[in-house]
């Protein structure tokens, strides 16, 4: 399990950095959970399923203020013009891009994969889920974002990640 977490963690950090840099020109820094600010705005949450060749669930939680900043940069609009629809669309599109990049990094180049459409969620990720393979925490412009990945830690998953 620890080996899988390390493999995933290494790939994920690079993918998060590349995705935010390329999509929103924002740098991210991986931090420990305790370093995340506690008094920021509520987090917006979305999840995505990798449906083949193995089932993996990826959650992305981002501070609403961070999403607002990204919308402002990407759409080049003023803060008061930002809509909730744009905020949520940036969240799901970021997760979609991140999920695709991660699977491209993890799987052999001849291995096709499928993703579900990303969906918004409101519930917190379960704290003690035995299927959680990895929780990673980042700061972007001092604002928090979290990525959690869950999957059954099977031999199949291990074999794919160690290809």
């Amino acid at each position, binding site marked *: 399990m620890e080996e899988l977490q390390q493999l995933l963690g290494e790939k994920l950090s690079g993918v998060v950095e590349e995705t935010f840099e*390329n999509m929103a020109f924002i740098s991210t820094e991986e931090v420990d959970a305790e370093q995340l600010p506690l008094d920021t705005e509520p987090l917006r949450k979305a999840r995505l399923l990798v449906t083949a060749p193995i089932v993996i669930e990826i959650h992305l939680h981002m501070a609403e203020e961070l999403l607002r900043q990204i919308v402002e940069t990407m759409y080049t609009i003023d803060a008061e013009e930002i809509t909730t629809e744009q905020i949520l669309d940036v969240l799901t*599109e970021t997760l979609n*891009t991140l999920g695709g990049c991660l699977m491209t990094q993890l799987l052999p180049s*001849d291995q*096709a994969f499928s993703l579900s459409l990303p969906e918004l969620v409101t519930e917190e990720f379960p704290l003690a889920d035995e299927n959680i393979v990895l929780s990673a925490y980042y700061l972007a412009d001092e604002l928090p974002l979290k990525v959690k990945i869950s999957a059954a830690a099977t031999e199949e998953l291990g074999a794919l990640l160690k290809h």
Partner: protein
Amino acid sequence: MKRIVIADDSGTARMMIRRCLEIIGFNEAEFEEAKDGREALALMKKNTPDLLVSDLNMPSMDGETLLQWVKASPKLVNVPVLVISSITNPAKTAELKQKGAFAVIGKPISPALLNEALAPFLTE
């Protein structure tokens, strides 16, 4: 003036694709946007575009089905299709090109990536 149809279920993705296309030289193109393959196909049947830029993972009709419809239509078969998706790797790219895609690029996109993919199209 070139007519370009952009199919992606994300408004943010459509906006980014359009911006990148404008940066690489399509600033005078006429853009039409569709939220899924069905909408894109309806737009294309009404007025044949010079280029279709399509995502793969979309509700209602996905990009792969859209590509197959386009390449099966005598009216649309010659429209170049650029696929932009998060579900791309060498295996998928080869499969999509075999089905008729002009080029395939992964998200996140950049003007440089689009420029490289569309270089033959830009010289026409």
